């Protein structure tokens, strides 16, 4: 009896010791593994290197985004080629319409982002009551408007009158070339169905060209109060443009903005001749130039509205992706 506490204490101490040893097992050098050689830390990149890498990554991001846009657009080809023959060629204004509740016109249900109507300022819930002076008062105003669009040529400004919360407002909507209206010469009877982003804009040579819309103040430095400034010309001399040129007209069409100039240029086919009216070093010049070739394997799709069939034309060029 008198030894019991002592043994208890010893037993507890022994167990505690075992626990401590087991807990510290990792630290016991039973069989120490070989120490791997310490890697030599690479020297930290300089600020300039990081900046260079960042710029490269941003460029990749932008190019990937452009590719996503191109592929996503192509993805809708199949569906649209099935629907297109039902509608026929017409210009695009970029609105979804339905009959207005009180039969006053065509109510705007959706406005396409970046479309002609959106650019003009038309909004959802506006009621289109007249186009080019023709009132939409028939049984089916959306159909009436569609009929009007069938006779309109691309780039034609349409006078559109809407009612917005009961008040009349007038807009100029510039119709864009739509299915059946893109193609050489922009012939109304041409059967190209689905306009596609030209390859020369996806890859070289025009991809990296940068344009800025001239403001009167900025234009005073370049000798013009209108036009589009070429901030960065194509590197290989394509279109014969140089940094600092101001594009006044493309075959007589005056670009109102960088986007507009891009749109005008994208309406040309590879190999087409084009005359650029420019200002270079305060002097007006006419540049005779050629729209560059596209990459090999570029495909232009055609559709016959009557039959709904499509053929493929492969345009070979000398551009590298």
């Amino acid at each position, binding site marked *: 009896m008198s030894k019991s506490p002592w043994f208890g204490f010893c037993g507890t101490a022994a167990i505690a010791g075992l626990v401590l040893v087991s807990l510290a097992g990792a630290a016991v050098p039973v069989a120490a593994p070989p120490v791997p050689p310490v890697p030599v830390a690479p020297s930290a990149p300089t600020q300039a290197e990081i900046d260079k890498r960042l710029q490269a990554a941003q460029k990749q991001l932008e190019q990937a985004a452009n590719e996503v846009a*191109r592929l996503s657009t192509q993805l809708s080809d199949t569906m649209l080629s099935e629907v297109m023959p039902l509608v026929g060629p017409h210009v695009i204004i970029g609105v979804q319409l339905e009959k207005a509740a009180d039969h006053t016109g065509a109510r705007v249900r959706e406005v396409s*982002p970046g479309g002609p109507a959106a650019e003009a300022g038309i909004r959802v819930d506006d009621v289109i009551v007249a186009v080019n002076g023709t009132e939409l008062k028939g049984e089916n105003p959306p159909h009436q408007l569609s009929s009007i669009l069938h006779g309109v040529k691309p780039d034609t400004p349409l006078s559109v009158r809407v009612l917005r919360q009961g008040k009349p407002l007038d807009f100029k909507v510039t119709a864009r070339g739509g299915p059946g209206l893109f193609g050489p010469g922009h012939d109304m009877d041409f059967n190209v169905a689905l306009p596609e982003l030209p390859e020369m804009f996806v890859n070289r040579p025009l991809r990296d*060209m940068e344009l800025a819309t001239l403001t009167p103040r900025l234009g005073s430095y370049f000798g013009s109060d209108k036009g589009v400034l070429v901030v960065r010309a194509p590197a290989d001399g394509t279109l014969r443009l140089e940094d600092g040129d101001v594009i006044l007209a493309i075959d007589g069409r005056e670009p109102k903005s960088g986007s507009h100039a891009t749109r005008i240029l994208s309406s040309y086919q590879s190999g087409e001749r084009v005359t650029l009216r420019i200002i270079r070093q305060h002097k007006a010049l006419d540049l005779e130039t050629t729209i560059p070739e596209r990459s090999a394997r570029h495909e232009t799709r055609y559709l016959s509205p009557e039959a709904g069939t499509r053929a493929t034309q492969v345009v070979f060029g000398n551009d590298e992706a």
Partner: protein
Amino acid sequence: MHPDLDPQRSGLARLLRELPESAAAPYGYREFEQRALARAHQEHGHAGGRRLAVAAVLFLAALAVLLRLNGTPHTAPHGLGAAEVRGAPGLDPEDAPAPSAGTAERWLASLPSEPAMVRVGTRAAVMGLEDRIAQVDDLLTATGDAGSAPERLRALQQERSRLVGTLVQVRYAQTLANASP
């Protein structure tokens, strides 16, 4: 011997006799394990509670952001101006675009229609998508009023949503790519 001590001694003896034979021994290792386990469970419970609380706060924050995005016009990145775009009443519930579509179009509308500097390749890519969306919208008008099959209208509407989603992705990526470090 002092006589007064007797009663105290007897009382003390009685108390001593009432004591247990031995004091409670320190608990053994097995009990130590049990107590440690119980303590760990208790702490785990507290930690779980803390995690639950954090998750709840995060969920509420996400919900608040979602409600804000869906309920009000918002400002796009880089301080671009906000624009109000209303929904699209009049659509059948099945054909109505998802709530996120409204948010996406609000954001798109908040972007400047004409950037100060246009990179031709980038602008052309965006224009291609925008034209395609406009094409689909015009087709929806044209086929809708011609009594087209509802499945076709629904498919076109879904295609529109997909294209708008792509446009948002592309423009957001371009915004990031053009952002100055």
